[in-house]
């Protein structure tokens, strides 16, 4: 029986243990089957809770912070989401629904808010009603036209005895009628096209918050100001981030550095990385929630606190 509790396991998984504790924990991991699987189970559980939005706020913040440190966990998140979706699709209520295909499959494969779903539902209903109405109208019109044609033929055959007007008058009425029908059909076709366009619009624009990509901004000594134009003032609930690479002077190569964003320390105790060209740089990930609209000053400081490099990330929504 291992002597590590749940809190210690989560500290290990979130990379919050001190070095000595971490080493002791790890020594037991390979040797203690129960502990190993307890840690694995806890990680799976955290990932599943994250995916289903059941993590408490504080745990969620810790979890998201851990995604930077443990890149393989992001794949776990994606897999957990797929697994949850697969399991969801196997539920009895879902299994009786037909498998969505084509445009509609695409349309409804997005996760929507209840409001959006309801709007989609209404639009779809409207579209179906319009199409059904159009089809019925067409059928009715076709029958009417065929009747009128028959009447026209009869009029031509029997002359003014059975007709209430002359052939020319009947033909004129028919032309007006046909023209009206054509206009009506055209109007319906336009309405249907507009509804279809409306339906397509959210499908292309709706992006799940956690589906957003990662921006990469690489500063260089000659371009110390860079811009991003799609900043989302999001919270930890909707993470989006920017990977930032910043060159730093060679003099600081072997030093421990710290990084400040808008004068607040966001990273400390970092070692710069040396590229194949012998130049040093530092890279970090900044969440959108940490950025503000406008100028964001990112400064790099050496171990004595001296500023050794400064960059500006201009952010616009």
């Amino acid at each position: 029986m291992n002597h590590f509790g749940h809190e210690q396991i989560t500290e290990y998984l979130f990379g919050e243990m001190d070095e000595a504790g971490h080493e002791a924990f790890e020594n037991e991991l390979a040797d203690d089957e129960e502990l190993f699987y307890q840690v694995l189970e806890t990680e799976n559980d955290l990932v599943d809770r994250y995916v289903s939005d059941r993590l408490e706020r504080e745990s969620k913040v810790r979890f998201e912070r851990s995604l930077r440190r443990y890149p393989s966990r992001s794949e776990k998140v994606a897999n957990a989401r797929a697994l949850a979706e697969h399991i969801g699709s196997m539920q009895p209520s879902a299994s009786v629904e037909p498998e969505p295909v084509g445009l509609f499959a695409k349309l409804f494969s997005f996760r929507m808010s209840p409001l959006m779903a309801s709007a989609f539902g209404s639009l779809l209903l409207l579209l179906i009603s319009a199409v059904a109405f159009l089809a019925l109208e067409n059928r009715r019109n076709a029958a009417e036209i065929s009747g009128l044609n028959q009447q026209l033929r009869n009029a031509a055959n029997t002359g003014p005895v059975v007709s209430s007007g002359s052939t020319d008058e009947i033909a004129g009425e028919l032309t007006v009628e046909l023209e009206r029908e054509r206009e009506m059909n055209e109007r319906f076709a336009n309405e249907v096209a507009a509804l279809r366009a409306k339906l397509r619009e959210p499908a292309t624009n709706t992006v799940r918050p956690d589906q957003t990509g990662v921006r990469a901004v690489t500063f260089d000594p000659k371009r110390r100001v860079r811009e991003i134009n799609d900043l989302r003032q999001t919270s930890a609930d909707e993470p989006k981030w920017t990977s930032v690479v910043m060159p730093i002077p060679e003099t600081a190569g072997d030093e421990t550095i710290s990084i400040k964003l808008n004068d607040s320390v966001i990273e400390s105790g970092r070692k710069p990385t040396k590229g194949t060209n012998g130049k040093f740089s530092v890279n970090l990930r900044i969440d959108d929630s940490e950025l503000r609209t406008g100028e964001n000053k990112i400064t790099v400081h050496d171990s004595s606190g001296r500023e050794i490099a400064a960059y500006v990330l201009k952010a616009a929504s």
Partner: protein
Amino acid sequence: MDDRKPTAFSLFLRAFDANEEQGALAYEELRFRLTQIMKWKGCLEADADALADEVMERVARKIGQGEQIENVKAYAVSVARFVLLEHTRKRRELGVDELPEVPVHMDTDATDGPDMRIQCLRSCLVEVTQSEADQRLIVGYYDNGSESKNKEIRRQLAEQLGLTPTALKVKACRLRGKLERCINDCVGRVTKPESTDTYHREEPAR
């Protein structure tokens, strides 16, 4: 009588268990744990696999040289630390870390699309599970409903399979590990171009 000299690998297996078959199972288990530990040390999935193999090879070599190792698992973890340090140093030298810290495909859904991952998951579920019971196990065990529902489903699963709750947990975790690995491979095959990173193709030092 077989008078062939045992290879370093067979000696390694025997270090786990006198029965080589049991030894092979223990080998696989240790490799799985090392891969996982590498990931918990911040390695990417692909790196973690390669590094775990490197650790296993070094431990096997040591045993092959006649070294008496009291606790192979603990020894493997200490070797893992060195291997990871070397790996980190090598990445720095090659400037790999100069790339953005977060790989471009970090947010996996954004690049491979949720549909593809689900397709991979479905084919992998068949591939990695040996029976329908295994499929039911993984689907039931990870049914992400309420806590009480989960507990009840897991209790029933354990009962149906004649397993203790701990044995069920181990089985579910192993299956999920295999499943995730299969999905990642599947998605990787479909979406990502062949890696140009030559580091992982290098033969380990002899």
